[in-house]
């Protein structure tokens, strides 16, 4: 439902987004990752039609955001980065305004506002002006605004920013729930969130996509994904290292600690040769054959964190303010 092709944005001489292409289909929740200033917000602002792309196209449900902006925007729910809202309005008035802007009238409007209020747990603050609310409530008010017209496409820029752990959990389950019949893109800095809510993740660095896959696929890219760590009692460490190194499908053996008679080693699989997670059996078999006593053995799962850090570079430039 969202189709982005070769999208680019220059801010003066600086390239903020550099030829990004991807697609999001119905039922997909796409996590947008990347260091600050990588171009996440700029990409989202281009898809929602707030800023025009320098090159490339983005379309929503078949409507090009540049050629047919009104039709495209009608199908998008958008939560901008800082969750802005009209501070002098009450939550109720603000949501009614948003509903009317989406062409909802009378009963349809009442129902839409009621549902959004319930989804975002805003019942208690309806008659308060937004400026008197805490950050979490302000954020949820803006989130409510983005979902009340039941859009086919949801674009959320850091939807859990500034929320407490309980609220984060609620928003994540809300995203997961809505994800079944919508196409959702959301950006985040929190990597567990990607695992908790996304069906797919894209990592952006310096305006380019550097990784695109399911959270599991991304984790598999971690150096230690599928590695077998074990603690052995008895054999000499260099002997262990030599034998393990000779095993088929082993890329490298690392000695983490050697404290005779114990040795703590990690065996890395050669990902090109095996499927990555089959190493434990072979290692255990070898240990039994050699008569080593195994104290501990487990297969490491890659951490998104490590992948993220290995493929993105720290950016020290400030994020650009638009408008």
């Amino acid at each position, binding site marked *: 439902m969202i189709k982005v092709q070769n999208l680019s944005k220059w801010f003066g001489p600086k390239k903020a987004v550099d030829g990004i292409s991807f697609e999001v289909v119905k039922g997909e929740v796409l996590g947008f990752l990347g260091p600050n200033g990588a171009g996440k917000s700029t990409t989202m602002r281009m898809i929602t039609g707030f800023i025009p792309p320098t090159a490339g196209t983005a379309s929503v449900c078949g409507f090009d955001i540049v050629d047919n902006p009104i039709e495209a925007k009608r199908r998008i729910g958008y939560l*901008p*980065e800082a969750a802005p809202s*009209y*501070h002098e309005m009450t939550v109720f008035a603000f949501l009614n305004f*948003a509903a009317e*802007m*989406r062409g909802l009238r009378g009963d349809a409007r009442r129902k839409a506002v009621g549902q959004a209020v319930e989804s975002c747990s805003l019942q208690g603050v309806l008659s308060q002006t937004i400026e008197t609310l805490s950050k979490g409530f302000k954020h949820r008010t803006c989130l409510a605004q983005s979902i009340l017209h039941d859009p086919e496409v949801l674009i959320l820029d850091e939807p859990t920013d500034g929320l407490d752990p309980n609220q984060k959990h609620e928003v994540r389950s809300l995203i997961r729930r809505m994800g079944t019949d919508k196409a959702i893109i959301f950006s985040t800095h929190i990597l567990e969130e990607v695992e908790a809510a996304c069906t797919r993740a894209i990592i952006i660095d310096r305006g380019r996509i550097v990784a695109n896959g399911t959270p599991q696929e991304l984790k598999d890219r971690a150096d230690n994904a599928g590695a077998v760590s074990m603690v052995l009692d008895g054999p000499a460490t260099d002997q262990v290292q030599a034998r393990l190194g000779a095993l088929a499908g082993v890329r490298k053996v690392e000695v983490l600690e050697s404290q005779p008679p114990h040795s703590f080693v990690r065996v890395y699989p050669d990902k090109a040769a095996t499927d990555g997670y089959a190493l434990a059996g072979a290692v255990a078999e070898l240990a039994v054959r050699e008569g080593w006593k195994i104290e501990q053995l487990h297969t490491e799962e890659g951490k998104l964190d490590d992948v993220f850090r290995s493929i993105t570079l720290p950016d020290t430039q400030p994020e650009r303010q638009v408008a």
Partner: protein
Amino acid sequence: MNSTVIKTIATRELAAYFESPVAYVFLVVFLLLAGFFTFSLGGFFELGEASLNAFFNWMPWLFLFLVPAVGMRLWSEERRQGTMELLLTMPVATWQAIVAKFVASWLFLAIALLLTFPLVITVNWLGDPDNGVILAGYVGCFLLAGAFLSVACFTSALTRNQVIAFILALVLCLLLILCGFTPVTSLLARWAPQALVETVAAFSVLTHFEGFQKGVLDSRDLIFFFSIMAFALFTTGVVIRSHRAG
């Protein structure tokens, strides 16, 4: 869909004035100053005429300060709070948002103008004025307010700082007044050819406002005010587009 979106934005905008103290402070100050100018500086009683000339004469100067105060927040506030991103990613064209916000503020100024009705009652009580002339004067005031407001709308799109927007609007509106202000035109007439003086004066709101004061609704004056508004609002659109393009 077009007009309902404009109506929705305009309603919200107008309500926003009354939800903050701004509206009430403005209305009180406007009415007090209007009264002061009319009766003290304008010499309403001394004129001995059954007209509101004392009132209308001062309106350009009063609007010079008060209209930029009404218009300065229009876009700068949207930019400061980031709501511009919210508003312009809703299904609305930029020009619709600009027109809607302008219309809302213009209506607010119309409300302020209408609240000067006691003056009309007073002058009718005391004498037998030509109410047609008074009506024309009010139409002129309304158009003048619109012209100044469109300028303020433009300057508020330039910056997220309301004070800067206010001062810029004030300077631009002052220019629009001064180029037809008698002391300035006579100064200019000392060395410039008559044609130039007249051309410069033709750009002044004062020149075009005079007609209305005399009770004349000249299409040229109407076109003048509407072109200022159209031009300033168009420029507002250009400014907003260039901000978004980065």
